[in-house]
Every structure is written in C-alpha cells, then in structure tokens.
C-alpha cells in the first residue's frame, strides 16, 4: 500500500510532460483526465508548460457564450418592446405639450364614456358630460338634432382617479393586515413556541402559501369573506384576501428579522428582570422592525399589482362615489372600490381596441407601471436608509 503511493506519483511525471508536448495539436482532450493528478513536483520541472485548450473546446465555449449573450439580448429586447410600447402609447394620454405637461384630467377625474360623432363635417369627441351639454345646446337651436354616426366607447374618456385611490387604499390596508398577522405569527413561532416538529410544519405551510396562484386566493377570499362572512364585495374582503397572499412574504421576512436580533439583547433584557412580553416590546421588536419593514415592503408592489385576488372580492368595474363619500364610518370598510389593475383588465378585454380606446388602455397601464415602480423604488430607498441605521 505504502510503496504504491510514490510509484503512482512518479507515474504522473511522463503524463504531465506528454500533456505539454501534445497540447499544440489539439490532442490534449484524451489526456485531460490526467490533469488533476498532476502533483506539485511536476510544477517544479522547468520544462512544464500549460496545455492549450483544444479547438473543439474553444468552439463549444464560443457557441455557449454567443447563445447566452443572445438569450440575454432577447430578454432585454422583449422588455424594451413591452415597456417601450406602453410608454410611447401611454405618454400621449398622460403627458401633454403645454404646461403643466401632465394631463391632470386623466389623473384627477373618473372614467367616462367617450362619444365620437360627426357634426358639421367635423369629427367630435366628447366625454359624457361634455356630450350632454353639447347636445343640449344643439337641441335649443334644433329640437330634432341627433348626433350623426355616433359611436360610444365606455371608460375611454375622463380619467382614472378612483382607480388610483382604490389601489392605494387596497395596498395600504392589506399591508397593515398582513403585517399584523405576519409579525404576530413570526413572533409566536420564533419567540414563544417550543421549537420542534410542529413549528417546522407550520413554517412549511406558510412557505407553501407563497406557491399558491393568486386566482386561488381570489376564489378563497370570495368564498370566505364575500359569501360566508357576508362582507360582500368590499375593501375588507380585498384587504384580507391580499393580506393572505403576501402573508408568506411578510411572515418569513419577520422571522428572518427576529432571528437577526442578537441573542445578547434578549439575554440582557431578561437578566434585568424583564418579562418575555417586555423584552419583546422594548427590545426585540424595535430592533427587528426595520428589517421587517424593509423586507415586507416588497410585498406592497405585489399587492398593488395583483388583479386576480381582488376581482371577486373588492373591485368594482365602475363606481360613481369615491371611497370617502360614505354616510357612516363603518360603510367605508364595506364598500367596493375601483382598482387600477382590474380597470386595466376591464378596458383591455371588455371593449374593442381602436384609436379611441387605446388612450385609456395605454394611459392607465403606464400610470399603473409608474405607480408600482414608484412604490418599489421608495421601498428600496427606505430599505437602504433603514439598513444604514442598523449598527450591531
């Protein structure tokens, strides 16, 4: 056994030398398996040269590089194509050439029906109200006046203000619910529960929630909150449905943040005669909060962007009243709202696509993208701020 080892080592020497010699004519591939056995002694021999890679190896490498590069470009191109189309087509709706350069009407008014008709040889486009006023004034002159070649397109005039408001309300409320539920769960699992099989199963179950498609959450929310709890299509139902959807994100983030709080803080607190609850409130949660917020803030973009969960639970196709126009405070929670992602779904699937409807379709989408991007950017900035403040 022992005598074998030096024999093996010395046997490498010629192989290594051969490697160096054969390298030039591309025959090195057959010898490659020998390479790992090259011992430090062979590096010491002055005649040693590093083998060239064979031609096929080089070609394969080249092909792989080019293919990967192409794939990356293809992805980039798709991204630009999608975002570019939306930006170009939507910009016409959202921006204008005269100050203040932003089409405030689009951001501050409710959706209306667009009426397109001919009058006096011109093609006119009016929103609901303008159309009514126009026809009224026409009928004063001529009681038999009727718009010629009138076509109307729902939601294609006015703006998307109620939708923006609804989306913000849904996102804020559902994050509040998700944080309350998620942080409580994480605190219980991490600080109170006895670590064991059961806790592991609960953790796994929470993680599995993350894999459930959002439409399933929508159906669950419909069955549970809308029908069974009798909340109808309402903010409350939407909040809870969306909250359940991001619960895994929030709970996992919270648990990570709690784990990152040094054990020394807890020990110090206990050693001073603090109870578990006091330690939690005065030390652990304040230390973990930045981490919890920064990680779960990414969930905000998700809840703001999902359509499926709110489709059956919270979103209205059209609602005249704004959310704060309620007679009782309780009504606020049990009203449905218009929401941006659902509005986009409606205008892009329920009405024809033509030059008149395109404006709202692309405009709403652009605003939606900007909104979600703004939320995501804000969260990234906030995350950086909070991270920098952390110092242990």
């Amino acid at each position, binding site marked *: 056994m022992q005598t074998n080892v030096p024999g093996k080592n010395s046997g490498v020497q010629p192989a290594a030398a051969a490697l160096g010699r054969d390298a030039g004519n591309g025959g090195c591939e057959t010898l490659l398996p020998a390479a790992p056995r090259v011992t430090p002694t062979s590096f010491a021999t002055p005649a040693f040269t590093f083998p060239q890679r064979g031609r096929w190896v080089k070609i394969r490498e080249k092909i792989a590089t080019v293919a990967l590069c192409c794939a990356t470009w293809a992805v980039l191109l798709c991204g630009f194509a999608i975002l570019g189309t939306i930006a170009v087509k939507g910009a016409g709706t959202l921006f204008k050439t005269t100050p203040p350069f932003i089409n405030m009407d689009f951001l501050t008014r409710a959706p209306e029906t667009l009426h397109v008709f001919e009058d006096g040889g011109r093609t006119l486009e009016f929103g609901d109200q303008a159309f009514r006023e126009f026809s009224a004034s026409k009928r004063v002159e001529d009681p038999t006046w009727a718009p010629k070649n009138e076509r109307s397109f729902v939601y294609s005039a006015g703006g998307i203000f109620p939708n923006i408001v609804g989306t913000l309300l849904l996102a804020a409320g559902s994050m509040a619910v998700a944080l309350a539920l998620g942080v409580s769960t994480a605190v219980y699992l991490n600080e109170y529960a006895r670590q064991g099989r059961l806790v592991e199963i609960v953790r796994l179950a929470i993680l599995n929630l993350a894999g459930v498609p959002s439409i399933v959450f929508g159906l669950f929310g419909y069955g549970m909150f809308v029908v069974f709890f009798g909340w109808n299509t309402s903010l409350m139902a939407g909040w809870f449905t969306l909250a359940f959807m991001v619960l895994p994100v929030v709970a996992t983030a919270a648990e990570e943040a709690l784990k990152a709080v040094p054990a020394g*803080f807890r*020990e110090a607190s206990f*050693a*001073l*005669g603090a109870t578990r609850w006091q330690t939690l409130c005065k030390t652990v949660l304040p230390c973990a909060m930045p981490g919890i917020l920064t990680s779960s803030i990414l969930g905000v973009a998700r809840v703001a962007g999902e359509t499926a969960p709110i489709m059956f639970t919270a979103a209205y196709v059209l609602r005249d009243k704004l959310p704060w126009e309620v007679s009782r405070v309780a009504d606020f929670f049990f009203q449905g709202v218009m929401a941006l992602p659902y509005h986009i779904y409606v205008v892009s699937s329920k009405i024809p696509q033509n030059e008149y409807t395109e404006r709202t379709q692309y405009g709403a989408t652009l605003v939606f993208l900007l909104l979600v991007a703004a939320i995501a950017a804000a969260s990234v900035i906030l995350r950086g701020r909070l991270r920098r403040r952390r110092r*242990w």
Partner: protein
Amino acid sequence: MSETRNATISEPAPVPAGPLIKIENLDFHYGERKALEDVSLDIGANRVTAFIGPSGCGKSTLLRCLNRMNDLIPGACIRRGSIRIGDLNINEGTVDPVELRKRVGMVFQKSNPFPKSIYENIAYGLRIQGLHDRHVLNWRVEESLRAAALWDEVKDRLESSAFDLSGGQQQRLCIARALAVQPAILLMDEPCSALDPVATAKIEELVHELKHSYTIVIVTHSMQQASRVSDQTAFFYLGRLIEHGDTRQIFTQPANKRTEDYVNGRFG
C-alpha cells in the same frame, strides 16, 4: 411574588449568619448532557467569589443557575440538589424568575448594550419596573453610572448611542445597567475577556469598590485576575467542583493536585 422577595433575598446589608448563597448537591443537565455534577458551594455575602476552571467545565452554567437564566434554554434543567439564596430555594414554584433576576444582576462576557442611548440603556431596567418619574430616573442613572466609574466619561453625552463607547466603556455601561436595578448579587461572566489591560484594570478596581455593597460572583480565565479581585475561589473541572476556599490558599497551597496544576498553568 414581591412579598416573598422582600421577606427573604433583599436587604443585603445585615448579613445573616452563614453564607448568602448556598448550593447543595447540584446536578444540572442540558437535555441528556450532564453539565454539573454534585456541586456544593457556599458563597459569602459582600465578598467576591471567583469561578475558575478550563473551558467547558460548567462555570457559566452554574452562574446562570443563580439567576435562572438557564430557564430560557429548552431542555436545560436541574436534576438534583438545590440553590438557596438567603433562606429561599430559588427553584421553588413560588419563586418568579423575573423577580429573582431583579435581585440577581448579570454582566455578560460580550458587552451587550441595547441599541439605544446611554441614558436609555441604564433606564431600561427601571422603566420595566414601572418607574417613569423623570427626576428619579435621572438620579438613578447618574448614581449607577457613578457606581460603575463611567459618569465622568459620559455625562456630557448621555443621549448619544451606547455603541459610540469603547469596548471597555460599553462593558462598564453594562455593569451600570445591572446596578441600576439595585440587585443584591452581581454575576459576572468573564467580564474582561474582550478588553485590553487598561480597561480590565478599571473593571477590577470597580469590582473592589462594588463588593462593599454587593455580593459578586465572577467567572474568569485569568489566574491573575482571580487572585487580584477575589476573596474566595472555586475551581471546577469537568462539571465538578474540585476545590474551593480562600483565594490565597487556592493559589498558594491548593489541597488538590489538579487545582495546583491548573493555577500554575500546567493544563487548561
């Protein structure tokens, strides 16, 4: 709860005849692992007792038994024996560990100030006891910082973060924090292991001062430190108490061969 506490383990000044802490035949397990075996030890009031011994011999474990910090470790339990402080068995069901820890303070090996201001660090223990009067708080914070010989260094920046202090100052801050709740007993687990000689000397000086009003138990790996600061020394080996007695006696004429080897640096 507070009745039992007041009746028994508080009032350190009039020392009862006999030791303040009485450990009897203690067996301690981490799950199935035995960490302490048949430890019997008396710790006198207003004295400094040093625990020495090689790493893993159970010094910290015993220290943490004294304020029931081990309750927080799942599976850790006392299998046999008892610990009495004054004449109260601290592991009895009627003893609230939270109340116990207010009377038995602890300083850790790694200084662990809270990520709060210096002032808030000291006030923490007082606030959780429901003390919110600003004047009393100010006064107690100053008193504790003075007792920990830190007041002069930080009096101008009480509102700055505790993390702005040096390592040695942080450790003294932790001592001040423990003193603020006015414990009778102070447990120190290798308080100087992360400090330089100057900071160590300051803490040792402090221990000297504090022993007039507190009963101190200190774990240390430094023989010099043990001989400098302690009145009594207990030597542990593999979970057993090998020898204990006056520090001078342990260091000059130990009764046990292993103690002699250890204090002379021949193993461990």
